[in-house]
């Protein structure tokens, strides 16, 4: 029988969702806004997709979906990679607003793993 764990609250995860959603909107704007130097480039597509994926994974954690603890840990790890990768890509795209969104998402991730209550057994 798999072990199901859920946190009591998910403030950090919700912050991840909110910031990455904003990030995805910013990335979408950058993607189509001709004349910004990165519109329709591979990099702009990349950060748009990665922001959405971070948002999706954050949503799974935030909605307390019943997933095994190892999967929850895996999601958290992948979210961290997504945030760092998107942030780095945003830095190299000179998309500093998106970078700021990823900084907020990183704060959310830290809250999730450090400050949010321990999951229920």
């Amino acid at each position: 029988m798999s072990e199901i764990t859920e946190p009591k609250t998910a403030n950090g995860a919700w912050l991840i969702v909110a910031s990455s959603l904003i990030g995805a909107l910013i990335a979408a704007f950058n993607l189509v806004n001709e004349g910004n130097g990165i519109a329709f480039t591979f990099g702009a597509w990349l950060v748009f997709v990665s922001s959405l994926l971070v948002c999706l994974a954050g949503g799974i954690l935030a909605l307390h979906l019943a997933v095994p603890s190892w999967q929850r840990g895996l999601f958290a790890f992948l979210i961290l990679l997504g945030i760092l990768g998107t942030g780095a890509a945003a830095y190299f795209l000179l998309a500093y607003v998106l970078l700021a969104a990823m900084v907020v998402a990183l704060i959310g991730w830290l809250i999730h793993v450090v400050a949010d209550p321990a999951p229920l057994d």
Partner: protein
Amino acid sequence: MMTHARTFAVSAALALLLGAAANSRAQEQDGGETPAPSRYGAPDENTSGGEVQPTQSEDGGEATTPELTTEETQGGGSVQRPADAASADSGPVEPTADKQPDAWMESSDSWATFNGDLRAQKYSSADQITPDNVKDLEKVWEYHTGDVSDGSGDIPTTVWSATPLFVNDTLYFGTPFYRIIALEPDTGKEKWTFDPDARLEALTQPAMKNRGVAYWQADEPQEGEACQKIVYVGTMDAKLYAVDADSGEPCAEFGQDGMLDVNQWNTVNDKWPLSLLQPPTVYQDTLFLGWAGKDWTDSAAPPGTVFALDARTGELKWMFHALPNEVIERTGTANVWASMSIDPERGLLYIPISSPSPNYYGGNRLEELPLATSVTALDTESGQVVWSRQLIHHDIWDYDTVAPPTLVDIEKDGETVPALVQISKQGFIYVLNRETGEPIYPIEERPVPASDIPGEEAAPTQPFVDKPEPVVGEDWPGISPLADLVSFGECSRRAESYRWEGRFTPPSLEGTIAYPPTTGGSQWGGGAVDPETGVYVVNSNSVVQIYTLIPRDEFQQKSQEGETSGYYAQGDVPYGFRLQTFLNWAGMPCWNGPYGTIAAYDLKTGERLWQNPFGQVQKYGFYMPESWGSVTIGAPVVTKSGLIFIGASMDSRVRALDLGSGEVLWKALVDAPAVSMPAVYTYKGKQYVTFVAGGNTILLPKVSDQIVTYALPD
């Protein structure tokens, strides 16, 4: 990060092929045997008063080439002129003393020539935009010509390097489709356009290229009379068009109904047309015109020629040939494909002469060719050589002299010296007395490595310049640890297998590290100078390429590897040639950056004031660190207020830099790399800066047709 690394790698790979682009599709071989060339420059069958066979015009009729006489001049060159023209004395020529600049060209408000003025100073005395307020610059208008191609259709890709001209209260542009466009300078509103319906084929270049137009006007223009002011544009297929500057209507008296077929004088090794991509230099009712071709494909090729033409009629005044008659069955080019400069007071035309063909093997041209790869001063009246200084002996590196010499008087040791500053692909900055050609800062002949190729005899010495400090270092930049790591040591292993014995290591069978290579160093844009302070600014590249000769029986003509490398037949000489940029499997540069810089020099002392990485590499949207710099194509402009305006970089930015420090004070995004120099001008009391953002596939596969103008808010 791998993504970034690869991104940069591909980007840099694309960036590195500056000079290569002009030749990258030079593999379009004629296929047939090299025809026996006709001759010039010696008292033989067609020269010295003998008739030149008239060529066929397009309509089948005979062109109107008159009899030409030939006179020898210094350095093995010769000058041809119509037999009925006044003959100049041969032998040493004294510069004419009573010359004056054209008054209309000297207005401080205008930008009337390709380089801003005849002296190629690229200097504007406009001073409204300053280091303090440049951050407030804003876009006033932009205009799209519609003349752009990414190469996906029938028309080859476009490379647009046109300097905007501002004169006659109008902005004039040439386009890569060889149209002329006249705009209002403050609004960008179209005044008129002229379309010659030019042939849009890559006849000599891999792309449709244009560097703009030239302007002339009569000393005293007659009101209501057409063609008192003329705008000229050349085409890939050697047609020169002249139209009225106020209406855009062809000037009937020029050539045949406004068109002059310059190819009528392409009678020696005429394997391809003399492409007129660089607009003529205009001085006192005369157009001085060079041409571009492809010097990688053939050994015998059209020999370098500069034409002096009547500005009103297009009639030939004289033709200057840089190569002696004795060698033209085996070589060619040594042409002038970059812009020229003129000392208007002395009546001297300064021409940057390129290398002879083929570029990388000289066993077929072992004779001294003193005018090849030189900077040479011609008398504007006679075409005779006044002085010449060869910058590379027996050039086997494609170190064409590519940029117009900048003319400026400098204060040195308490005296005012008439100087000439010549930048170069090889990275040296030659500062000469422009009256005599003698060095102001020392030029020293030093031993250089010998060639190990049978039949080749590299020159035992080459001229070196230590001051001003070269734009690139003495040694090549060394292996990039990152590129070497990514390639599991590929870069190191390859470097050890190549020949490198310092500057001027000859091309070899095993491959020679060329640094700087044909991409430069500095390129055709040249530098800019503040004549008041003697501060000279130039952008440059730091690129490593590999030169490999391939024995003829092993040489296979392969397809090009992009625009930056490839195989070149070099005609019928014993060796073909392979040009490679030194990249690893991932496309990353194997050498350390920065890959492009901009520097300022004090010409009074020869000291370098500063040198900074310039621009950013961009690929797939990602920008690499500023400390890496960018390969650049284009040129700076300096203003009296202490600013440098320049595009040129891969990141499609135009920038304003502080002349004193090189700090970037303002930048703006444009639609493609602005691979030309901007025009800085004043109209109705307001200062404007206009950039052409056309792109160059050497830097990025990103082209545009954008003209954009900036000014301070009202």
